[in-house]
């Protein structure tokens, strides 16, 4: 760490201070970082790769963060830095496990429900648990677009950057993901009715 950064740290942006404490192996510092950010990152991992792999991936994310903390210079917030690290880990996992993301998103092209006109109405408030279950049924690529844009609040430009796709593809995949979710939620509602 350069002397100027050390000065910043002592001056105290909280993210830089925490990162510096972690780098110096101060007792409890890395656990503090974990407690602060693991809920958001676990939510991202859970929704991107599913419940089975999310715990393992969360471990890998924080182990990678521990290794790479020396690269964090405070250009963005620590949360943003970790979020990017987490999404990269999850997407690498999806790419390695399930061939190519782009190929997987293509499955929507032949899915009439993704375009929506045949779908029924959801009716009423969307139950979160129903939404989590429906989300797990989306193809991974479209799920990633939906999670990053609608759940995590990324712009299409950022989604496209994360996934290595164009803005237009991000928009069209998002629309298809939403229409498919609408269809899945409507079907779940219908099934619940006596």
């Amino acid at each position, binding site marked *: 760490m350069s002397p100027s950064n050390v000065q910043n740290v002592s001056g105290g942006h909280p993210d830089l201070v925490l990162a510096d404490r972690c780098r110096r192996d101060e007792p409890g510092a890395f656990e503090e970082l974990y407690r602060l950010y693991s809920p958001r990152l676990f939510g991202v991992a859970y929704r991107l790769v599913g419940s089975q792999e999310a715990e393992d991936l969360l471990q890998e994310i924080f182990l990678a963060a521990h290794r790479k903390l020396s690269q964090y210079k405070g250009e963005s917030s620590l949360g943003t830095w970790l979020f990017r690290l987490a999404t990269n880990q999850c997407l690498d996992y999806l790419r390695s496990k399930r061939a190519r993301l782009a190929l997987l998103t293509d499955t929507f092209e032949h899915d009439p429900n993704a375009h929506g006109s045949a*779908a029924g109405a959801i009716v009423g408030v969307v139950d979160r648990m129903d939404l989590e279950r429906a989300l797990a049924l989306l193809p991974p690529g479209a799920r990633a677009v939906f999670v990053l844009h609608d759940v995590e609040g990324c712009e299409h430009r950022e989604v496209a950057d994360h996934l290595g796709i164009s803005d237009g593809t991000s928009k069209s995949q998002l629309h298809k993901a939403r229409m498919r979710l609408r269809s899945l939620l409507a079907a779940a509602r219908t099934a619940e009715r006596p």
Partner: protein
Amino acid sequence: MTICDEVQSQLSLLVDGQQPERAAQALVRSHLETCASCRGALQDLERLRRAAASLGPMTPPDHVWLEVAGQIRLSPSPAPAETAPRRESPRRAALAQWIGLAAALVIVTLGYYAIQRVSGGETTGGNVQPAGTVEAVAEELNQATEHYEKAVAELEALAKSDATALDPAIAATLKQNIQTIDVAIAESRTALSKNPGSEPARASLFEALRRKVGVLQATVTLMNEMRKGNQAGAAEAAAAFGKKS
């Protein structure tokens, strides 16, 4: 493509507060005034968007932190340590060595049993295994857990007198995890005793056992913190086995 299809393809833009493509703007507006189905679709997408934004963070199980902490302590520090390495008391090292190796063996054995039982259940096409088999596995785990807890208690007692204690917060979390899992195991056992052929109860028991193995695996990793040398390899192998199981 019907008019409804054409209009619905523009709905996500509206939901995101953007304008439809210029050529379609007039069509979308006029169609939405007259088509209840497309208006319904727009409302659904708006609800969906709100619901998605409300999907918040999720607290991970505590054992994840235990495993992260254990792995970090086994790995070289990213920054050079500023303090001299701690010297390990021979008595503690010997005890820790024994515990680590025993724990690794227990985990490997339990993992093997669990896998055998679970995979057996899956490959028999729904045939129900005798309840006694499941109970036997659970009983073995209970016995192993007792040994473990005894070992942890001994280690903690040693640590108290040695200034380099097993982190009390981690030990407490570990204990809490075990208690929670034990409740799940007890509930599954009760369900199995009432209905020995219950597939969900058996699956639940195995899931609880699997989680317990995971926590015990984390225990091994943490115990490794307290010892140095070649013994670390045995526990790392146990952790790797646990991941695979």
